C-alpha cells in the first residue's frame, strides 16, 4: 500500500482575513479631526459594526476529512450554551455540501488549528465568522471539485456536489466521496481568488432549526467541563484567599502543614500561597491551616461604591452628537429623569475550574474559559514560559457571561502544578466565586428631553456614568485614547430619529474590581433609555408603541425596528384587552446589529412585589442561522435579565462582597419565570449576534408595565429592591 503524500500545512496567500477595519479607519481619521471628534467618529463607526476579528482562512486548518467522508470542523469559539458549535457547523456544512450527519465539531485550543485572538464574547461569534468560514468551506469544496474533475476526467463545471460527494451532473452514478478525494485535494495549492459562494436561495442548513451538537453528551452527563477535567495522576489544589477586598499577602508561615496527611506540596510565592493535596478537601483544609498575614485596606462600605457613580450633563466623553441638544433644551420645558443600576455577580453555575499539567517542556491546561489565547498568555507570563509552549484546551463552559474572559483559576493551577510536578485541578467554591474576581459595575443615568409641539422628541440628552467594563481588559493607552469605556456605553446611544442628541459617558474608577457582564452596559443603558422613552410617550400623550414607531428612522435599521415593533404588537395584541389586574409594557433595542422588542405582562403579587406572567419577544438578527437557537438565546436572555432586574443587587459590607452564596444573592427560579413567546424574523442575508441583545429591553419592558399598572415609575434596579445581601439567618 502506498503512503499518502504528506499534508501540506501552510498558509495560503489569503491566509488571514481581517474583519471590519473600524479601528484602523478611525485612527486615520483622527489625524485630521482631533481627539474628541475622533472618539465620536469611532463611536459612530462602532454602531452596529462587527468587532474586528483576525482568523485564518486556510481550509486545511479549519477542516479535516476522514477517509469515511466525515468532516471535522475545528471551531475557534467556545461553547457555553449559546449553541455556537452548532451554528458554525451549519454554516460550514452548507457551503461544503455535506449532509448534517457528516460534520463533526472539535474544539480548537489556544494553539489551533484555528486560533482565536478575540475570545468568545460580544455576541460576535456568528457575525464575525460567517464570511470567513463560508469562504474557507467554499475553498475546500472547490479544491475537492478540481481533484474530482481530474480523477473523473471531466471539466470541474460538469460536477455537482451533494451529501459529501462530487458526481458528474449528467451521470450521477459517476461519483467520488470527499473521503476518497481528500488526500489529493489537500495536496493542492489554495487558489488566491475567493471561491464562488452558495447562493442564499439554495440554503438548506442555514436557517434550519437543527438540534444542538453538544446536547447528546450533555443530557447523559458525559460532557466534560473545566470542573470535570481529569487526567491520570492528578492532584487537587487550593489557594489562600484575601480576607477583604484589595488585601495583599504580607507573610505566610507554612508551619507543619506540609506534614499533614494527604498534602503533597505547600507553595508559597511572593503574592501567592496554595497547597497541593491528594484530595480537594485535604487541600482546602491545609490552606485554612496556613498561618497567613495579609496587608488589608480600610474596609470598604457600600456608600463608597455607588455614591461616586453620578452622571451629570456636560461631563464625560461625547459618544453621540447630532444637532445641538443643549441649545434646544435651554429654552424648552425639559422632562428629566434619573436611573440607577447596581453591582451584579455573574453567578454562572459552574464555578471557575481548571486542570493544568506543567511539564519541563510544555504546559497543557483544560479550562472552562471564554478566552483560550488570553489564558495561555497569562499562564506563560506567570510561569515565565514561551506562550507557544502553553496549550489551553477549552472545555465546555458551565455559563460564561463575561466572567470567563479572565480565568485566574488556570494560573493558580499552573503555579501549583509547576511546584508539585504533577497535574493539578483547582475548582473554586461558590464563596470564592462571589468574593474574588470582578463584578458588573453600578451605573447612573440622567436623561433630559424636550418635546416639540407635534409631540415628537425635539432634543434628547443621555448622560451616563459607570464603573469600568472593558478598560480592565485592554492596555491603558487604549483606555486613555477612548476616554470613556466603550463597554460601559454599549447601548447608551439613542437609536431613534431625533434631530438633536447628545450622549456622554463618564468613567468612574471604583475601589472594587469591575468588568464585563453579559451585554456589558446594554442592560443598564437600555433600561434607562427605554424607560425614559416611555415617560416621554406618556408626557406626549401618545401610545408607547406609536411613539416608538414614529421615532424609528428612515434608514434600514429604522425599517427593521418598525417591523419588529409591529410584529411584537401583533403577537401580544398590543392595545387589546389585558387580563384583570395586569398591564403590559414595551421596550426595544438595537444592539450588535440585532433588533429586538419585548412586551411584558405583569401584575402585583398579593404579598408585594412584581409578577411577570408573560413576555412576547420579537428578534431580528438579520439572518437567523438556527431560528430555534435564536429563540433559546432570547428566552435565556429574558430570564437572566429578569433575574437581574427583579432581584439582583450585589453590595459591599465591611470590605467584602455581602454574599457568599445564593442565599444572600437569590437568582430567578422557575417559580418567577414567565411564559415566553419568541418570534424570530429574517431581514437579510447577514447574521448578527443574539447572545446578548435580547437582554437589553427586558428591564424597561417590565418597569413600563408596572407604570401602566400602578402609575408608579420605577427608576432603580433591582425593581424588587431591598436585597442588601443580608447574611442568611
Amino acid at each position: 500500500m502506498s503512503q499518502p503524500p504528506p499534508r501540506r500545512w501552510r498558509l495560503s496567500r489569503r491566509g488571514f482575513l481581517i474583519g471590519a477595519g473600524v479601528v484602523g479607519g478611525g485612527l486615520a481619521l483622527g489625524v485630521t479631526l482631533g481627539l474628541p471628534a475622533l472618539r465620536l467618529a469611532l463611536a459612530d463607526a462602532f454602531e452596529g459594526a462587527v468587532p474586528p476579528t483576525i482568523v485564518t482562512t486556510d481550509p486545511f486548518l479549519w477542516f479535516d476529512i476522514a477517509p469515511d467522508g466525515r468532516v471535522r470542523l475545528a471551531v475557534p469559539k467556545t461553547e457555553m450554551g449559546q449553541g455556537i458549535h452548532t451554528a458554525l457547523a451549519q454554516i460550514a456544512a452548507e457551503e461544503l455540501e455535506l449532509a448534517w450527519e457528516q460534520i463533526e465539531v472539535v474544539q480548537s485550543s489556544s494553539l489551533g488549528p484555528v486560533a482565536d485572538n478575540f475570545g468568545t464574547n460580544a455576541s460576535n461569534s456568528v457575525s464575525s465568522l460567517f464570511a470567513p468560514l463560508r469562504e474557507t468551506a467554499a475553498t475546500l469544496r472547490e479544491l475537492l471539485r478540481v481533484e474530482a474533475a481530474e480523477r473523473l476526467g471531466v471539466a470541474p463545471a460538469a460536477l455537482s456536489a451533494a451529501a459529501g460527494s462530487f458526481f458528474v451532473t449528467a451521470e450521477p452514478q459517476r461519483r467520488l466521496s470527499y473521503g476518497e478525494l481528500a488526500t489529493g485535494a489537500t495536496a493542492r495549492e489554495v487558489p488566491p481568488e475567493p471561491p464562488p459562494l452558495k447562493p442564499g436561495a439554495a440554503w438548506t442548513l442555514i436557517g434550519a432549526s437543527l438540534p444542538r451538537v453538544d446536547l447528546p453528551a450533555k443530557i447523559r452527563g458525559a460532557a466534560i467541563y473545566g470542573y470535570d477535567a481529569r487526567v491520570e495522576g492528578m492532584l487537587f489544589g487550593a489557594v489562600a484567599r484575601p480576607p477583604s477586598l484589595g488585601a495583599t499577602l504580607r507573610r505566610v508561615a507554612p508551619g507543619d502543614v506540609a506534614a499533614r496527611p494527604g498534602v503533597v506540596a505547600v507553595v508559597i510565592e511572593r503574592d501567592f500561597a496554595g497547597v497541593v493535596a491528594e484530595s480537594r478537601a485535604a487541600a482546602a483544609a491545609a490552606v485554612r491551616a496556613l498561618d497567613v498575614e495579609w496587608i488589608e485596606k480600610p474596609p470598604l462600605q457600600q456608600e463608597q461604591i455607588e455614591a461616586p457613580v453620578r452622571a451629570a450633563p456636560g461631563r464625560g466623553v461625547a459618544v453621540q452628537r447630532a444637532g445641538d441638544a443643549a441649545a434646544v433644551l435651554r429654552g424648552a420645558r425639559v422632562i428629566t429623569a434619573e436611573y440607577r443600576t447596581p453591582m451584579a455577580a455573574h453567578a454562572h453555575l459552574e464555578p471557575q475550574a481548571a486542570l493544568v499539567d506543567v511539564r519541563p517542556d510544555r504546559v497543557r491546561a483544560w479550562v472552562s474559559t471564554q478566552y483560550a489565547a488570553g489564558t495561555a498568555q497569562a499562564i506563560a507570563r506567570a510561569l515565565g514560559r514561551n506562550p507557544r509552549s502553553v496549550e489551553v484546551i477549552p472545555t465546555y463552559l458551565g455559563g460564561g457571561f463575561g466572567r470567563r474572559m479572565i480565568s485566574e483559576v488556570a494560573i493558580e493551577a499552573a503555579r501549583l502544578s509547576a511546584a508539585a510536578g504533577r497535574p493539578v485541578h483547582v475548582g473554586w467554591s461558590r464563596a470564592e466565586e462571589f468574593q474574588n474576581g470582578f463584578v458588573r459595575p453600578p451605573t447612573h443615568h440622567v436623561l433630559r428631553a424636550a418635546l416639540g409641539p407635534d409631540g415628537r422628541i425635539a432634543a434628547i440628552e443621555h448622560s451616563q456614568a459607570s464603573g469600568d467594563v472593558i478598560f480592565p481588559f485592554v492596555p491603558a493607552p487604549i483606555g486613555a485614547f477612548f476616554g470613556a469605556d466603550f463597554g460601559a456605553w454599549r447601548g447608551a446611544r439613542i437609536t431613534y430619529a431625533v434631530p438633536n442628541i447628545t450622549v456622554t459617558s463618564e468613567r468612574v474608577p471604583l475601589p472594587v474590581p469591575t468588568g464585563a457582564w453579559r451585554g456589558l452596559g446594554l442592560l443598564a443603558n437600555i433600561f434607562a433609555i427605554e424607560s425614559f422613552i416611555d415617560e416621554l410617550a406618556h408626557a406626549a400623550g401618545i401610545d408607547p408603541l406609536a411613539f416608538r414607531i414614529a421615532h424609528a428612522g428612515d434608514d434600514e435599521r429604522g425599517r427593521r425596528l418598525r417591523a419588529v415593533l409591529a410584529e411584537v404588537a401583533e403577537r401580544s395584541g398590543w392595545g387589546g384587552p389585558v387580563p384583570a389586574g395586569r398591564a403590559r409594557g414595551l421596550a426595544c433595542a438595537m444592539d450588535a446589529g440585532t433588533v429586538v422588542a419585548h412586551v411584558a405582562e405583569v401584575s402585583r403579587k398579593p404579598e408585594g412585589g412584581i409578577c411577570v406572567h408573560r413576555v412576547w419577544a420579537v428578534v431580528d438578527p438579520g439572518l437567523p442561522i438556527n431560528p430555534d437557537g435564536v429563540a433559546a438565546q432570547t428566552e435565556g436572555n429574558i430570564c437572566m435579565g429578569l433575574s437581574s432586574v427583579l432581584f439582583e443587587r450585589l453590595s459591599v459590607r465591611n470590605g467584602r462582597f455581602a454574599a457568599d452564596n445564593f442565599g444572600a444573592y437569590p437568582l430567578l427560579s422557575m417559580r418567577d419565570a414567565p411564559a415566553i413567546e419568541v418570534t424570530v424574523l429574517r431581514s437579510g442575508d447577514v447574521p448578527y449576534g443574539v447572545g446578548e441583545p435580547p437582554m437589553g429591553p427586558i428591564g424597561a419592558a417590565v418597569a413600563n408595565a408596572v407604570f401602566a399598572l400602578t402609575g408608579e415609575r420605577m427608576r432603580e434596579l433591582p425593581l424588587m429592591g431591598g436585597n442588601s445581601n443580608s447574611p442568611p439567618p
Partner: protein
Amino acid sequence: MNLTINGRTYQVADDPPRVLLWVLRDELGLTGAKFGCGAGYCGACTVHLDGVAVRSCQTPLRQAAGRAVTTIEGLARGEALHPVQRAFLEVQAPQCGWCMSGQMMTAAALIAANPNPSDEEITAALERNLCRCGAYARIRRAVARAAVLACGSGEAA
C-alpha cells in the same frame, strides 16, 4: 464501605467523613452530578437515593450506604435514553448544561412519583433547581413532555 451506584457496587473508604457529591466526582470519576453552590441552593448536584431526589452536596456518604444511588450516568438504560432525557433533547432544553443533570434527576423523581404532574406540581418540584442561562420555559415544557413520553412507554422509573 460499599456503595451501589447505577447498579454497580463500589468499595470506598468511609473515613474521613465526606459528602456523596465529591466521592462521586473526585473518587469514582462520575462527574455527571455537578457542583454549583455546596449549600443546597442550586440543585446541580441532584441524584437519587432509592428513587428520591436528594442534593448530593448535602448527603453524608454514610447515608448513601445500603441504598441505590442513581446519577445522571445511570438514568439511561444503555443506549435507550430515559423519557426525561428524550424530552430534554426533543425540546432542546439545555443551554450551558451545567444545571441539567440536576434538573433531569429532579424531573425523573417527580414523574416516577407523579406520572401526570400539573404545571404547578412541576414548578413546585423544580423551583429549587436554578438555571442561570434562564432555560426555565423549556425545562417546564420538557418535564411536561417527559411525563407524556413516560406514560406512553411505561418507563417512568
